[in-house]
């Protein structure tokens, strides 16, 4: 009998432990940051730092070469195997200070990182925005837990990112508005916080998942129902289409506490507060949604134009249902769209982007056909390093949708042309 009671208690404890959450903290600089006394770098200075660097300390973890690329606010370091750094940067008396963190995308390894560039080792060239710096040596360290720094780190400037490469637009599109919640990022997928965050990961574009609430408001959310994978535990559960936006706004929080954004709010934020150039609206609903989404797309394209932003917003057409819904819109051939089906569908709909899934191969002949018609070709969703390298080197796509934009960034920017 005692053994039976022991088993029952053991089973209850096991069941209570089935649900595991991971809250991976990103090391932050805090109030004593070395950056509090520094000044921000100008955009020309930032461009000087972009380039290919060798790694002379820390190469056992981060590889022999890295790519450094500035985004809107952050300086990112892309490594070959899924490691990346995100730094805040400032300068004081021609000394460049860097403070941030590193992360390995395939597990939870992360840590703080700090570094500096001395005046005579590139600091002066950077502050003066000398487009041909003789040398840039970034020296510092990184840690593997908390904010401690206990391993040396050094990057040495080798060459700029190929101008030929930069002259051609290539879109690095991040999934679920910039990254997946399941990858333990510090912000939730399909949130304004993620749109703000993702440029630091190397994204130049985003894919966002669009669904309609019961009162017809397009919101960003991936799954069909409210669930504990994407949202905090709350009093609502069930299909998202059952609830009004007011109910979702007050009674649902994404996993890191953010509200579910409306599509309109997300696009306003993208236009006003980011340098993102491409937005791919992935329509998750089987019910007609185009009549709610197309006016918002039109309004936001005009908003971007008014602000002088180079922003493209494409309505994704992943199925024949979506195509039929899309074709009910007046003048649909002039609505910017992205078609995931065949090239014939692309031509019939006059879609500006053809986006086949990556498992269909590089399809260079069809990509060339799209290019000859003035259309773009993107592929999705490419996460494996070997495939990314192959598609970049052997394919001719104009963009890749990925969960790991820093991996695509590394293999893209390190190319010679």
């Amino acid at each position, binding site marked *: *009998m005692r053994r*039976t009671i022991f*088993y*029952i208690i053991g*089973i*209850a404890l*096991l*069941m*209570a*432990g*089935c*649900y*595991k959450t991971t809250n991976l903290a990103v090391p932050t600089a805090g109030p004593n940051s070395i950056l509090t006394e520094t000044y921000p770098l100008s955009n020309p200075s930032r461009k000087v730092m972009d380039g290919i660097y060798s790694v002379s300390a820390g190469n056992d973890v981060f590889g022999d070469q890295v790519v450094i690329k500035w985004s809107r606010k952050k300086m990112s370091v892309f490594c070959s195997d899924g490691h990346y750094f995100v730094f805040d940067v400032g300068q004081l008396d021609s000394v460049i200070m860097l403070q941030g963190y590193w992360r390995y995308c395939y597990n939870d390894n992360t840590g703080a990182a700090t570094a500096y560039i001395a005046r005579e080792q590139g600091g002066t060239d950077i502050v003066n925005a000398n487009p041909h710096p003789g040398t840039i040596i970034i020296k510092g360290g990184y840690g593997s837990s908390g904010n401690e720094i206990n391993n040396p780190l050094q990057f040495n400037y080798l060459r700029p990112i190929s101008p030929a490469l930069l002259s051609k637009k290539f879109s690095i599109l991040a999934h679920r508005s910039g990254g997946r919640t399941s990858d333990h990022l510090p912000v939730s997928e399909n949130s304004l916080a993620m749109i703000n965050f993702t440029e630091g990961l190397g994204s130049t574009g985003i894919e966002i998942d669009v669904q309609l609430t*019961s*009162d017809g408001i397009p919101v960003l959310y991936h799954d069909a*129902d409210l*669930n*504990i994978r994407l949202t*905090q*535990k*709350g*009093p*609502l*559960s*069930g*299909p998202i289409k*059952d*609830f*009004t936006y*007011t*109910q979702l706004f*007050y*009674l*649902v*929080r994404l996993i890191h506490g953010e509200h579910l954004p409306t599509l309109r709010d997300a696009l306003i934020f993208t236009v006003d507060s980011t340098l993102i150039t491409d937005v791919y609206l992935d329509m998750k609903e089987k019910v007609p949604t185009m009549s709610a989404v197309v006016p918002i797309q039109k309004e936001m394209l005009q908003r971007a134009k008014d602000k002088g932003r180079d922003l493209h917003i494409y309505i994704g057409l992943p199925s024949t249902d979506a195509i039929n819904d899309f074709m009910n819109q007046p003048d649909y051939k002039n609505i910017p769209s992205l078609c995931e089906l065949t090239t014939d569908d692309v031509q019939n709909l006059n879609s500006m982007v053809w986006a086949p899934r990556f498992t269909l191969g590089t399809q260079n002949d069809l990509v060339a056909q799209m290019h000859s018609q003035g259309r773009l070709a993107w592929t999705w969703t490419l996460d494996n390093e070997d495939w990314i390298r192959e598609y970049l080197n052997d394919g001719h796509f104009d963009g890749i949708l990925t969960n790991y934009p820093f991996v695509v960034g590394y293999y893209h920017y390190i190319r010679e042309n």
Partner: protein
Amino acid sequence: MKRYIIIGFLCLFGTWTASSQTNDSIPKTRSHFTLAVGAGWSHYFANMELVPARNVQKDFIGTSFRFMWEPEYRLSLGLETGFYRIFKVDSTINSEYNMKSRMNVVPLFLVIRMRIVDNFYLSIAPGIALQYTKITGIGPEITSHQLSLANFEATASYLYPLGKLFIVGGEARYMYFGKTNDIMMSISAVFAVKL
């Protein structure tokens, strides 16, 4: 993790079955079917992050209905359903809405039950569950439902025969609903009829 738990359960029952063979190989009853009805107190282990625990009502009356095939040996097999209110939330949102939300569940479990000693049984039951959420007080009243596929129940029962036809007893029940990560327990009185 769930795979290990399932393997653990199978090993556990295998052990019990094997140990029972040596001293209990003579059937005590004939094969028969039983129909059982249970009712009693249920308690929800609130884990809500968005609503203060004081606003979550956790204790309700739950009912269960179980149909079992009981062969002459220790293990028996059956189906169980029931009706439970998991929680009821009454909360003022943003000083503007007096929101009420409740979730009910109708599970359907495949029950594997074993007699451990005379009149005392343990059972485990995987199954599906239909979950209903009703919300009022913030926007229109909405009733939503969803299917939860990964659910689990464990039950300890004391069942005492009253003559040849009837059985009365009590059950302690633990239930886990995977879709919403909800855990509840219940203690109920059971009345069963041999068919």
